[in-house]
């Protein structure tokens, strides 16, 4: 547990929760990133402007953090480009089919005590954990 960072996890999680509350309280929308992004793909679902603004905000939030000199200044991808490309495809397809991602199901759906979202979270944490175990400990690692 030497890598556990409880303070930044609490602070970051609170900011994300607050972001979700702002969006629902002001615009009536769920802060599901995959759903918001999917609405921008052609043919658009309309209301492109607020969707775009939300995604620009996501990128901008990262930019504010870096500009203010947050402790994390570099991120590490240890996996091959092939795995990233396949991972992106599965994340997009799975979120589209399953109606949500870590934010939509994991934060917003859980906050609404949705049985669908709680089930989705249990399933994707399980398959993600199994995938990492297979890659790191069963297939290549020791």
């Amino acid at each position, binding site marked *: 547990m030497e890598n556990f960072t409880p303070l930044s996890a609490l602070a970051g999680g609170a900011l994300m929760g607050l972001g979700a509350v702002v*969006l629902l309280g002001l615009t009536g929308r769920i802060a599901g990133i995959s759903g918001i992004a999917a609405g921008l793909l052609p043919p658009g679902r309309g209301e492109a402007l607020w969707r775009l603004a939300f995604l620009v905000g996501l990128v901008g939030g990262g930019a504010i953090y870096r500009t203010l000199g947050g402790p994390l200044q570099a991120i590490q991808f240890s996996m091959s480009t092939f795995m990233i490309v396949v991972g992106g495809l599965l994340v997009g397809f799975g979120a589209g089919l399953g109606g949500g991602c870590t934010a939509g199901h994991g934060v917003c759906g859980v906050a609404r005590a949705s049985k669908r979202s709680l*089930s989705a979270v249990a399933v994707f944490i399980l398959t993600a954990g199994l995938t990492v175990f297979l890659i790191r400990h069963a297939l290549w690692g020791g």
Partner: protein
Amino acid sequence: MMARVAAALVSGLLFGLGLAVSQMVNPAKVLGFLDIAGPWDPSLALVLATAAGVALIGYRAVLSRPKPALAPAFSLPQETGIDAKLVIGAALFGIGWGLAGLDPGAAFASLVFGQLESLFFLGTMGLGLHFARQMN
């Protein structure tokens, strides 16, 4: 209209800042949680629980009002059943998440760290979303 766009921008900023502060933009950090057989890092679970807890309290306050401040009505998901699409979709999502260490939100917020991998991931993620929409 412009007020709604500004609200979405502020919401996105808070969410993206939260993803960076909690280090969830870093695939190495996410994989540290998913790898339960390694030196386990429970941070991601605390991030999710805190975000959902804050949203739970805030949602209750917000949903006790007749409508959102800047829109005529709330747009909440109407599906309630647990079907094959949900389970298969979530299972595939998890496999992709475990392969790349990124989810959609983290991928966007990670862009400013200047790694090409974030762009590759977002590109194929968009493709995957597109395929799923054609099936639905």
